[in-house]
């Protein structure tokens, strides 16, 4: 069995933003009994022993945890590469300096658009100026800066201007990731999925920008899997490289696996090693033995691992089926229909977005 390389620690689902493409669970309130600082330290220590090398601190908004600096410092004592995935809201200069001293390696800040009105509109709260201030702070303290931008129907036409802003801000890397349809994003799919014409224009803009800005800034562009021929190799394979611990201590092969009908595995009850090696949650879709056709006999089964189990379950009701994104899937028509609908003119009201609400959190930290 492989050892895990990365741990995604979703420290809290508290977040000052209300992005309608959020992949957090719909039942946010069920995660309010958060792990304590001591429990998170234990998780980090066990992860390092298991072979984890990278710790991604995310949420929700990880800056909402008052023990973030402590956890970064602890992770560094265990040799982990620490990466903070944040909205930037809550990154005061004091906090940033403490994180720098604690040894935080890398910061990823999300922006929603290239200008205030649209960015604040998507985030559902005034945040654009605070994000820019956080970006400047990251640069000033000498961290490498990655900007994360989730693309969708309402901002993808501005991708050129988003890239210009990133260059102006001195970003070292930018990840332009089309929305993945889980959690709140799935609920809002109709209003978020771009049309084929929008995608084609955006791809041309990104190609041109690579020539123009490629020397200064690394660009990562992730297409929406609904438009791809084959599914994404989700998490690099189930229980193969990555694991996620969510705010209440549940451990998952990917951040959305809580949607699957599998028995829970929690750090409150078991060691991380047992969960990784033996739990039904991690064993169920490991390797290729669980596959049916067309995956079982497909040449690509070790490349994309049958795609995403959560997407298969969400769209077909059976987590062991081929991801319907795949052109070879007997269920592909489900995805094809959504793509066709996205290219038809929208009827008024159809694309209204439900903002992700604040969870009712009783934090223990």
């Amino acid at each position, binding site marked *: 069995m492989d050892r895990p390389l990365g741990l995604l620690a979703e420290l809290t689902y508290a977040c000052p933003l209300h992005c309608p493409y959020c992949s957090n669970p719909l039942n946010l309130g069920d995660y309010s009994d958060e792990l304590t600082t001591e429990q998170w330290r234990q998780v980090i220590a066990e992860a390092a022993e*298991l*072979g984890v*090398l*990278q710790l991604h601190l995310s949420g929700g908004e990880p800056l909402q945890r008052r023990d973030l600096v402590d956890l970064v410092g602890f992770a560094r004592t265990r*040799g982990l*590469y620490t990466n903070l995935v944040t909205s930037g809201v809550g990154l005061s200069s004091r906090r940033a300096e403490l994180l720098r001293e604690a040894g935080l*390696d*890398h910061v990823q800040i999300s922006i929603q658009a290239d200008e205030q009105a649209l960015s604040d509109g998507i985030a559902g709260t005034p945040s654009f100026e605070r994000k820019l201030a956080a970006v400047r702070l990251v640069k000033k303290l000498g961290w490498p800066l990655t900007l994360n931008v989730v693309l969708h129907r309402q901002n993808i036409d501005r991708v050129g201007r988003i890239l210009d802003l990133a260059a102006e801000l001195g970003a070292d890397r930018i990840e332009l990731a089309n929305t993945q349809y889980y959690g709140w994003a799935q609920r809002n799919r109709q209003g978020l999925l771009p049309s084929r014409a929008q995608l084609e224009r955006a791809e041309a803009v990104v190609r041109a920008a690579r020539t123009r800005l490629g020397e200064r800034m690394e660009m990562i562009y992730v297409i929406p899997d609904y438009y791809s021929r084959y599914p994404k190799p989700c998490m690099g394979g189930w229980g193969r490289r990555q694991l996620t611990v969510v705010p209440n201590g549940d451990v998952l092969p990917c951040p959305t696996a809580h949607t699957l009908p599998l028995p829970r595995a929690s750090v409150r009850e078991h060691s991380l090693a047992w969960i990784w090696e033996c739990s039904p949650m991690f064993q169920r879709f490991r390797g290729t033995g669980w596959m049916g056709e067309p995956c079982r006999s497909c040449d690509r089964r070790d490349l994309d691992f049958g795609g995403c189990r959560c997407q298969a379950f969400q769209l077909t009701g059976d987590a062991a089926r081929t991801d319907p994104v795949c052109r070879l899937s007997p269920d592909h028509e489900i995805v094809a229909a959504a793509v066709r609908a996205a290219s038809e003119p929208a009827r008024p009201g159809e694309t209204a977005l439900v903002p992700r609400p604040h969870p009712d959190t009783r934090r223990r930290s």
Partner: protein
Amino acid sequence: MASGAGRPRLAPHVRLSYDQARQRYVLLTPETVTLLNGTGAAILELCDGERTVADIQAELQGRYDRVVGDEVRAFLSGLIARRCVELSHG
């Protein structure tokens, strides 16, 4: 190919680390883990922004018989292309 006069160093977001669990050196970025062999790790430990590629080559040739100049340059060129290593001139 990395020129012999350039002075390589790790890019700011990259960390060279020894992985206890796998008993080998690794190069870490936010999204990637590169497992290194002994020679790779030895090359990167010398990438301090002061030594030139030629210096590193000479130093390793003194240390191991089998390290050839092109091997150092090819290894560093690959990491420069992936933005893990930066090369300064002068």
